[in-house]
């Protein structure tokens, strides 16, 4: 008989040597020939990056405050795990079932210790069959051929062979619709899933698609349901925080993130989100501590980006630590600066103009024409506003404020903008800008007679 596992490369991840040996024994018993080990989180990442195995058996508890779930999330974040690779979580913990049943990002399967080689074989065979069934879809999805991917899913949904996978098909469909920018359709697909069963991940999917459609209060209502019924679903808390920020409730966003960040101290995407919320909330100390942690400890190569250093500098500027901010900014390499997008260049020049006027003012002045005309995100706009106000450039400042108030995410930045104006004793001017924007909007919305 032809054993498909003889040629497969296994990676066993476990921090306990005896448990690693036990897993190897089981893997070898089902025919595995090449079984590699990883003793910890970093080692596992390194091995997977450099030579992706076919089948990963990963213990849920990895020690040092790391979990297999975190590893899985990190692998997906850096696109290191192809859909074709099998990721099987191994756990003695019953609590992991709760995680899998709730969250959006799940392994191919999980298996509870102790288990026999036969049971592992049964589970692996099932995953192999499933991956074979979805093979053409994975390929289309990887090439971002979304229409093709959706067409393949539709065909699978209606096929006899697709019967055991109908939830997975719908889930993939919703994710693909979301990725292709069709949030309304994704919402409908998630609701179809919910009409069958109240899965927390599907409810979160509804909230995510509503958020994308800018239906903020509806999104908030949906995500509140998930967060209160499934407190272990931390990504739902992140989503709630993002929605809160968009609604202008930075304080609540920070409260939510503070709470989950304590339970997941090594989730650095969450730390970045916390820094964003804290900045909007005016809590510069928390923002600074979170970004310093990110820069020091998010250790995947390429994980820390110039925008992270800018976020740290921003929190330092806000906290009046101008010398520290200057040091952070000067730490960016010339080669990095040259490759920055206009958004990031604008933030860099603005923050440097405040923290180190001698170096920063000429650069900021050079960008001024672009800052008066280009389309920019709200974060750089707030930085420009801050710099323009402190340099007394009213025209530049007021242009930023006006654009911020006109933008879709005006609620998110309103508090920060108002605070900056009042810091410079210009509350009245801000109120006038607000009035202008409101008038313009009314004019715009009133149809011509």
């Amino acid at each position, binding site marked *: 008989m032809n054993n498909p596992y003889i040629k497969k490369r296994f990676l066993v991840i476990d921090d306990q040597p005896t448990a690693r040996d036990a897993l190897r024994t089981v893997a070898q018993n089902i025919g595995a020939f090449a079984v590699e080990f990883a003793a910890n989180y970093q080692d596992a990442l390194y091995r997977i990056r450099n030579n992706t195995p076919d089948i990963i058996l990963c213990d849920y508890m990895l020690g040092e405050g790391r979990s297999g779930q975190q590893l899985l999330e990190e692998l997906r974040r850096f696109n290191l795990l192809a859909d074709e690779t099998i990721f099987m979580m191994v756990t*003695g913990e019953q609590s992991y079932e709760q995680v899998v049943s709730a969250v959006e990002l799940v392994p191919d399967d999980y298996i509870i210790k102790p288990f026999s080689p036969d049971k592992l074989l049964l589970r692996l065979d099932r995953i192999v069959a499933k991956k074979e069934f979805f093979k053409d879809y994975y390929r289309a999805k990887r090439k971002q051929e979304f229409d093709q991917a959706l067409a393949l899913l539709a065909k699978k949904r209606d096929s006899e062979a697709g019967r055991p996978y109908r939830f997975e098909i719908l889930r993939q469909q919703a994710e693909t619709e979301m990725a292709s920018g069709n949030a309304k359709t994704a919402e409908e697909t998630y609701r179809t899933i919910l009409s069958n069963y109240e899965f927390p991940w599907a409810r979160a999917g509804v909230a995510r698609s509503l958020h994308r459609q800018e239906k903020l209060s509806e999104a908030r209502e949906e995500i509140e349901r998930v967060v209160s019924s499934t407190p272990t679903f931390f990504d739902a808390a992140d989503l709630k925080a993002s929605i809160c920020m968009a609604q202008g409730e930075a304080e609540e966003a920070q409260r939510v993130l503070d709470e989950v960040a304590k339970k997941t101290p090594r989730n650095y995407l969450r730390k970045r989100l916390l820094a964003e919320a804290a900045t909007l909330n005016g809590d510069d100390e928390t923002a600074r501590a979170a970004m310093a942690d990110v820069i020091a400890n998010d250790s995947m190569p390429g994980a820390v980006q110039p925008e992270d250093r800018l976020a740290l500098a921003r929190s330092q500027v806000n906290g009046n630590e101008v010398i520290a901010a200057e040091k952070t900014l000067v730490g960016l390499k010339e080669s990095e600066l040259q490759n920055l997008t206009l958004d990031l260049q604008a933030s860099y020049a603005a923050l440097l103009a405040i923290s180190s006027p001698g170096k920063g003012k000429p650069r900021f002045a050079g960008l001024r024409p672009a800052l008066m005309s280009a389309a920019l995100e709200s974060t750089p706009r707030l930085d420009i506003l801050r710099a323009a106000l402190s340099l007394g450039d009213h025209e530049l400042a007021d242009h930023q404020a006006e654009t911020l108030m006109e933008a879709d995410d005006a609620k998110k930045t309103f508090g920060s903008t108002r605070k900056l104006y009042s810091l410079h004793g210009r509350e009245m001017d801000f109120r006038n800008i607000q009035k202008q924007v409101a008038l313009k909007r009314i004019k715009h919305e009133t149809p011509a007679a």
Partner: protein
Amino acid sequence: MQKLLDILASGIHDAKNQLFQAESTLIEAESRHGVDLGEARYAIESAAQRLSRTLTAYRLGRDDQALAIVPTVVGDLCDEVALAQRHHLAATQIRLEIDCQVFDEWPLDRDLLTDILNNAVQNAGRFAKTCVRLGAALDDGGLLLRVEDDGPGYAEVPPAGGTGLKLAETLAALHARKGRQGSLRLDNGGPLGGARFTLWLP
């Protein structure tokens, strides 16, 4: 109280890890010496199952057991019970038949359900003469899972329940969907004429 639960949970977690090491030692011995230690491995897995069940019962007693509902292929569920029990039943000359008429997925707590069915098959195996049957079918808009045997049947109906039966009843009721709740029925009769354990899930 949370502390006691944590101590119990982590103790059970450690014990299961140890049991896994014990099982892997047996697996090694099996392949090295070409012997079948299936019954010893079965005993190890049953011990681990008992530990999990104890923790679940404790949690249920404190109303602290949330289900982990995942879409589960019903045929796979039956296959796993067969894999866990068939070898052991065969050692006592009892045949395990699987009759799964459901081809789709069903939202249920896979691990708890597997444990309940394993327990029911184990019980049936103790009283069966020649055969235990595990069946799955659609019924009244729900999923019907049934374990029956050709033994003498329950001495009284409903039988005085042990921990396993109590647990099965409570866990069935926790499965709720579209305003309906799961249930457990124990009776005698059916085509095999012995005891019948019938679980209905919405």
